[in-house]
């Protein structure tokens, strides 16, 4: 398992970036966690539907996406808000989605991030198609897909990995092994020693990294992105991390997880260790931290306000986007719903 930055902030390997370069990534992780905590709080107030916390996985998400170019594709899940935001998906869209508003699914033009995949497994092959299409048209854009340890058990993981390898698609597969699929621990999900070794079944390189180690994640993602960009094909990265919170706000980890295990992982927090590193490098001050938290809190509260000030969609809205142009059947159904004459 690749490790570069140890929990105490000291280096045990070659960092891919300088301390100065690490500052914006640290800031991004802080912002992401602010969003995460805020979302959990809002859900408790009933202002969001369920929410899936990514606390503890910030390095895995920010670090992998940091290796991408702004126009690359990102295809993630319900838990990958940090990765999506890092690639340009606005906070307001993420909040909207969580309030149960379709408008969350539509990022601005130019942001090549698909709405989060709610189904487990199906989205990885979408990244294969996206990257394949880009290469087909002569673009060197690549696609990155994020998914969990549980998702590796779905047949679609297998088909996506195999297609990517057979067609040398420019894709980076990022498996965030956060140790659980809802209540199912990693070792009940599959018997293979690592998830990274599954890549070998497809003749694909697989790298296991400490997913709470921003530098290790960056290094692995950098290599994988370079391979994809230069036509050498796909890579699987297993980022070993931990879901600090509940699966979603509807879940109670107390039923299946030992508090001792949670304690161990708290000490491996991905943000703390970068802060310690920056501190050692004189690149961190309490003032800067306060500033970061203030800025991100403001940005996130603004996004919440923007999301909540939107009126609900009109009753007939659902008929508008099933097709480019609604069929006569859909128009008829719209009239039925609105109580208008429809025969």
């Amino acid at each position, binding site marked *: 398992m690749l490790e570069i930055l140890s929990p105490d902030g000291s280096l045990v390997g070659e960092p891919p970036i300088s301390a100065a370069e690490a500052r914006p990534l640290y800031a991004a992780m802080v912002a992401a966690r602010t969003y995460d905590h805020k979302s959990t709080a809002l859900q408790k107030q009933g202002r969001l*539907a*369920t929410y899936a916390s990514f606390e503890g996985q910030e390095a895995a998400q920010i670090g992998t996406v940091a290796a991408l170019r702004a126009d690359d594709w990102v295809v993630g899940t*319900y838990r990958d808000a940090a990765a999506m935001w890092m690639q340009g998906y606005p906070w307001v869209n993420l909040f909207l989605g969580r*309030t*149960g*508003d*379709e408008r969350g699914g539509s990022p601005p033009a130019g942001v090549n991030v698909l709405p989060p995949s*709610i*189904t*487990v*497994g*199906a989205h990885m092959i979408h990244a294969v198609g996206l990257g394949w299409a880009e290469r087909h048209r002569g673009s060197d854009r690549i696609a990155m897909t994020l998914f969990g340890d*549980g*998702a590796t*058990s*779905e*047949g*679609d993981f297998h088909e996506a990995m195999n297609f990517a390898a057979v067609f040398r698609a420019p894709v980076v597969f990022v498996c965030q092994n956060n140790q659980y*699929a*809802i*209540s*199912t621990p990693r070792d*009940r*999900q*599959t018997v293979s020693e690592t998830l990274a070794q599954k890549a070998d079944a497809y003749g694909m390189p697989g790298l296991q990294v400490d997913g709470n180690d921003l530098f290790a994640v960056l290094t692995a993602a950098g290599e994988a992105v370079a391979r994809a960009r230069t036509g050498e094909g796909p890579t699987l990265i297993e980022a070993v991390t931990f879901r600090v919170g509940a699966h979603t706000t*509807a*879940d*109670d980890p107390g*039923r*299946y997880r030992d508090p001792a295990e949670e304690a161990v992982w708290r000490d491996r927090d991905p943000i703390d260790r970068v802060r310690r590193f920056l501190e050692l490098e004189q690149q961190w001050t309490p003032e800067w931290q306060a500033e970061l938290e203030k800025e991100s809190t403001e940005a996130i509260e603004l996004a919440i306000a923007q999301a909540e000030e939107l009126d*609900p*969609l009109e*009753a*007939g*809205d*659902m*008929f508008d986007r*099933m097709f480019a142009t609604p069929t006569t*059947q*859909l128009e008829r*159904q719209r009239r039925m*719903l609105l*109580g208008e004459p429809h025969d």
Partner: protein
Amino acid sequence: MTECNLAQAVTMALDHALASDPDVLLLGEDVGVTGGVFRITDGLQASHGADRVIDTPVAESGIVGAAFGMAVAGLRPIAEIQFLGFAYPAFDQIVSHVSRIRNRSRGRFTAPLVIRIPYGAGIGAAEHHSESTEAIFAHTPGLKVVVPSTPADAAGLLLTAVADPDPVVFLEPIRSYRRTRGDVSDPPEPVPFGRAAVRRTGPDLTMVAYGAMVPEVLEAADRLSDSGIEAEVLDLRTLVPLDLETVIESVSRTGRAVIVQEGHRTCGFAAELAATIQEEALYSLLAPVARVTGWDTVVPLRRSEHHYVPGPERIAAAATAVAREG
């Protein structure tokens, strides 16, 4: 007799099935240690063992395919799919194998298997968590399709499903898990397949529904009653086998019918009923058979979901039009 909600009734039935037949076992995602996302299987692993209440990897085709093999070998597996929207990866197993092995092998091999699936909208869940595509299973030969609406039926039909020699798709109305309460005898009384329940009698029109739509229809019927229209309300309970007799008998009397279904309109089960009613009772129809259904759209998310799901208002309006017609 215990007074409980529909979720608790399902738990009772599962517990009873596990206790009374060693060949019964449960498998699915998170059904064991944590007791399922709806806590339906809560405590069952503790009381019946981890080899009989089995947490599986996240793989629906695998869950159904493995349960199929177990059933062929003579066990009575009950597979749980977490939400109907997540049954689609298992679709090939269900349609190509579970539903067909009896016919394929001339009865030499059979698949007495129950697939439990929470279905339907109404709790403001995320996309894929509000599906009501029961028509797809009803369209698939070789599957029995059960959709209970009350705790007693949920428990009783489930026991019948477990005892049935053929595969059963057992759809549980998510919205009714906590909302719908009622008495359930302990152990639950098996409820036969293919017998609709008359939930309300009335001479003016026939309203047909199943599962999560039954409470909505009953509320609509009460509203109609206020305006002097007395509706007969039929709860199908099982779509396959279908109790057509009860439906035709009622419509022949009332001459008017409204079918209510949460699923998408085109080729939904209401279409089948409307088509069959006019085949069997055209000349007693005083008005066209009306369908009140979900739309041919993705089920909207939390903020707009209510525009999709038929509620008392929409149902009562349609029923009033049918009752007043001609």
